[in-house]
């Protein structure tokens, strides 16, 4: 995990935080889960038709969520992404800051490792601060969650913010609790039903 001295943040757990987020959702909010453990824990927290699970395309959780947010500006969109994934697509933070959709909340699950491939450290782990990077990209509403209560407070705050929000959470190196059913067509179709774009046959 990252070790920036300025940060005084608790090491939390991905499944616990994801469950806390899902428990708050009462208005069919969309949730996009990034590759690997991030969407495994989203799946494990209880499938909802408004959940989208990425089975590849590492790094694209935020861009996909941005697309949903632009298409449906009145729906709140959450995107859950790992720190290693985000490193693949840091440029997307600038794109999101420029477009500034007010209905987008991004959560970065930061354990400093590629857990799923054997917990090797990311190149950023010892030196980079992802929230500082986000702020530098123009996402001024970015913050580390100090603990679980602070995470819930930041989620609540993001839902009425005037622009996009990014929440960094330090997490442990535990694997995901569940495993998403790897059926991409059904995942996409169910998501479109959940967003009211299509009706089931």
């Amino acid at each position, binding site marked *: 995990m990252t070790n920036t001295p300025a940060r005084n943040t608790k090491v939390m757990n991905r499944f616990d935080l994801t469950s806390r987020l899902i428990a708050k959702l009462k208005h069919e909010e*969309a949730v996009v889960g990034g590759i690997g453990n991030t969407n495994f824990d989203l799946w494990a927290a209880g499938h909802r038709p408004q959940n989208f699970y990425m089975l*590849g395309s*590492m790094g694209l959780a935020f861009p996909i969520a*941005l697309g949903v947010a632009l298409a449906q500006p009145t729906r709140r969109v959450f995107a859950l992404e790992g720190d290693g994934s985000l490193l693949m697509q840091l440029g997307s933070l600038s794109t999101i800051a420029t477009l500034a959709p007010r209905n987008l909340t991004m959560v970065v699950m930061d354990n400093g490792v590629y857990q799923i491939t054997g917990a090797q450290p990311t190149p950023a782990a010892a030196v980079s601060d992802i929230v500082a990077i986000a702020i530098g990209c123009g996402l001024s509403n970015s913050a580390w969650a100090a603990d679980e209560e602070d995470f819930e407070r930041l989620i609540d705050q993001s839902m009425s913010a005037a622009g996009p929000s990014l929440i960094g959470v330090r997490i442990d190196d535990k694997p995901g609790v569940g495993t998403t059913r790897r059926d991409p*067509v059904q995942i996409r179709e169910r998501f479109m039903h959940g967003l009211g*774009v299509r009706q089931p046959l």
Partner: protein
Amino acid sequence: MSQTRADRENKMAAAGEQSSPETWHGIVLQTLKRNEIRLVPYVPDRVLTTLIKNLHADPCFTTFPTAREEEAVGIVSGAWMGGMRGAVLMQTSGFATLANVLASLAMPYQIPLIMFVSERGTLGEFNYGQSLVCRTMRPVLDSLAMEHHTVTRLDEFEFIADRSIKQAITTQAPVALILSPLLTGGKVFDK
């Protein structure tokens, strides 16, 4: 050149700068509009300059640059699932960065990803690297059995673009429209 002819050519040039359906970029803009494609993220290319400028000037479109082409693919994929149609503009070298996202997002999730690729690397290329990158494009498209057309003629372009967009949407499959230098003029050494 007579004054009259110069005037006429200036007017034609001015019309070309806007979105005249007689130009290839005018056809792109009108065809996107007719098919209700309003979201157009892009990574720019010299050849696409006028098209990009005209898309920005037209309030029908939400158009913006992205840092990478695969980011743009992610954005239009999310937008499609949210009920908004999109298309991505890029250059050949940008397409070369897409194999992973095509194979792991657009194809398996059956997303009608519409791509306009300005072709560099052929018919007068001056950068050897560009010509090598260009050779990777069609093998990648063919290896995924993705629909693609290389457009060389203005008189065929509207038909190809309109039909390909409609086919992508109805069959829920990606399509790449490769804009040949024969259509666009391409980029040459002295530009």
